[in-house]
């Protein structure tokens, strides 16, 4: 036998100017990619919140021992898509509502549709997110797609939605544990926090109307199972107890809207979104104005200074309506500032880039 000709892989010299020293981190990213990451994160958060809404209702229904005692209609109201529901469903029993919220792939705001959108967005930016994050999201998608509501028991469904939450937490944890804190992560975090703030406020809105017996009751101690269920749906029951102990409506509202340290309160989420936005601004080039920053800061301050007693007097629903409107405006400003091609193309070329002819 002749001697091995190619026994060893040829040594490979990396032909790079920057090998001698490390080149500085480049934080800028394609605006299309930033937008997809932002929406990926929003849609996963949206899906998780749907699972939370359903999960807490199932728990409650199981406790009450009656499958269809009328607690399922409010879940349709949360979506604001009653019209679609009435067109496609005839009854308001739990299986129909769960089918609608979780598994109806024709309904654009269902859990499966949200996951599909999250995954499609992720698929367009696979190169920009850690593989682990993509794989986890992909697994979550296949997990939900492989499940059907028909024929399932409430216990089985409860377990399913718990698992969806766990999958989502795993995704979120991987995002945080494996992705460098460049613009990509900050756009994802901003999307996640904006969506979470929105969903917490929506939940409060609907439950407030359904659960509040009389306006005069807002400040009396109640031990309504449903209010604790509401807190549990945002995993906030224990944290609430640590802060306030007894449950009153005003305190629950204070906790969900304004608690400075509870990670699902509207105020906390806006604070996180704002921090990410500031990091993005710091990494990038100076802009003369930044409407996203202006609007988000203003909304955060609005919550910082809010007095819950007065808010309740003036109408909780009116407050939340206004909050969601302003949140949408922040979203629109983020789009204009970072994703809108027509706006971005107006930013002048940095000198030195175009002048090297």
């Amino acid at each position, binding site marked *: 036998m002749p001697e091995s000709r*190619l026994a060893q892989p040829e040594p490979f010299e*990396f032909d*790079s100017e920057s090998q001698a020293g490390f*080149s500085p981190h480049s934080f800028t*990213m*394609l605006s299309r*990619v930033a937008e997809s990451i932002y929406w990926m994160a929003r849609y996963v958060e949206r899906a998780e919140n749907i699972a939370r809404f359903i999960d807490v209702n199932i728990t409650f229904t199981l406790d009450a021992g009656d499958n269809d005692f009328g607690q399922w209609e409010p879940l349709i109201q949360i979506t604001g898509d009653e019209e679609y529901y009435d067109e496609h469903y005839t009854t308001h029993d739990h299986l129909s509502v769960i089918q609608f919220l979780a598994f109806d792939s024709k309904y654009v705001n269902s859990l499966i549709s949200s996951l599909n959108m999250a995954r499609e967005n992720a*698929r367009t930016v696979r190169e920009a997110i850690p593989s682990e994050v993509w794989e986890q999201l992909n697994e979550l998608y296949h997990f939900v797609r492989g499940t059907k509501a028909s024929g399932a028991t409430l216990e089985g469904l409860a377990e399913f939605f718990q698992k969806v939450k766990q999958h989502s937490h795993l995704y979120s944890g991987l995002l945080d544990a494996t992705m460098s804190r460049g613009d990509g992560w900050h756009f994802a975090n901003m999307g996640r926090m904006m969506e979470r703030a929105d969903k917490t406020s929506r939940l409060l809105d609907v439950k407030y109307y359904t659960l509040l017996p009389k306006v005069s009751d807002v400040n009396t101690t109640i031990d309504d199972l449903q209010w604790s269920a509401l807190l549990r749906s945002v995993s906030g029951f224990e944290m609430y107890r640590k802060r306030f102990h007894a449950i009153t409506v005003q305190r629950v509202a204070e906790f969900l809207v304004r608690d400075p340290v509870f990670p699902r309160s509207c105020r906390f989420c806006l604070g996180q979104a704002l921090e990410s936005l500031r990091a993005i601004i710091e990494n990038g080039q100076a802009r003369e104005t930044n409407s996203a920053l202006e609007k988000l800061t203003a909304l955060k301050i609005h919550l910082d200074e809010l007095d819950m007693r007065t808010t309740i007097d003036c109408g909780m629903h009116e407050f939340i309506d206004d909050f969601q409107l302003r949140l949408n405006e922040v979203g629109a400003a983020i789009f204009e500032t970072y994703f809108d091609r027509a706006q971005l193309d107006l930013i002048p070329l940095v000198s030195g880039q175009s002048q090297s002819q």
Partner: protein
Amino acid sequence: MNSTDFSDYDVGAFFDELFASGAQPRAAAQAVVDFINDLAPGEYKRRQEAVDQALLKLGITFTVYGDEQGTEKIFPFDCIPRIVDTFEWSHIEAGLRQRITALNAFINDVYGPQEILKDGIIPRELVTGAKSYRKVCEGLKPPRGIWCHITGTDLIRHSDGGIYVLEDNLRCPSGVSYVLQNRLLMRRTFPKMISAVGVRPVDDYPLHLYSTLRFLAPDDVVDPTVVVLTPGIYNSAYYEHSFLAQQMGVELVEGRDLVVRDGFVYMRTTDGFEKVDVIYRRIDDDFLDPEAFRSDSMLGVPGLLDVYRRGNVALANAPGTGIADDKVIYAFVPQMIKYYLGTEPILPNVDTYVCEVEEQRKYVLANLDKLVVKAANEAGGYGMLIGPHATQEERNKFAELIKADPRNYIAQPTLSLSRVPTLTGDHFEGRHVDLRPYILYGKDVWVLPGGLTRVALRKGSLVVNSSQGGGSKDTWVLAREFDSVTSTDETLYT
């Protein structure tokens, strides 16, 4: 049968890559065959199923053209590797280096002085009349004189045991991501087998690719920005584009992310424009620049070719390289090698009849039942007639097509592709394979040790394309002579 092993494997009337005859493995494959024979009953199948699951979880899928729902499919992967010994690989590698060097010289010549045409080695009209000949590329001077930076050449083994070149793919050859992922899966699934056999690594491909691309950057750029340009998520090879960008650590851009301003190419970032220096484009010439090529293209970047001509951006592969993988031009590659390099071809072509030449056309029309007819510009197994398997009606249709446009057709004898054992139900059967190695042309010509072994999963089928029932296998180029493997056999069983 309760165990998946090779005890009753039948090579049939074919050249088998792993078995010399009957149950007698080739020396290079002995260790792998022993390893699999010694697995516990059901174990092999269990591991193959784990691989299928992993592929779905990893989302390594491709989109099927013509399917309205954009259904994703797994590109099936069979765990029995194709094994290439060191001696054969050095032969293949030398042949590919030679061929790519000659093809690059050819492209450089036809868009430049056209000496090979003046000397009558190739009929002028065959070149300048080809669909893939780009008149706008005449006079272009690509950086470092390189046109075909990334090539995937299709090789087959005929029943005579020889390796032949079937096709040159010099436009946007795909599949290399599967080579890397297949190896990853094999290492995960059969770690002991792979380390005991000693296989040359393929994992540094992205680094070589990145280095090749940086080498093309305009001279005055110190730290070039390299990007991968994809047609987008609905392209069947999107996964690969994304994978390569990720592995190289560069941006994956779409046409709409790029814009030409003041003679340079920029990408749209969240902070406005950022200059781009090198584009690994996975978009065909036709769609690259609507100002230079097809004006209805929505995928490309208006003005890109102009920037390229000015030398302010590099494109890989260069526009116009398609002329060298026209199937008619293919027939002349052996002459090119002699003409430009003065050497005999190391890897032979498959006999090819050029329908444009009257005598050869007559032969083709008279022997359609024995030949494979291919359109000069189609890829992916489309526009093809496999004479012996076709109906008389299909053959008549192709006879008319050939008479109407002889320039567009070539014919080749029906080849008997070699086979590799492949899991079929509960046991192994031989399935036909080809091999696509990848060649990078930067500072020098580098050949990835291995390549994509495509396998026709349907019994008796010779069509290996993923769109038509093909799958893939890992390709193991041995790191040492197989004689030395036998002495380490005991490590396989620990």
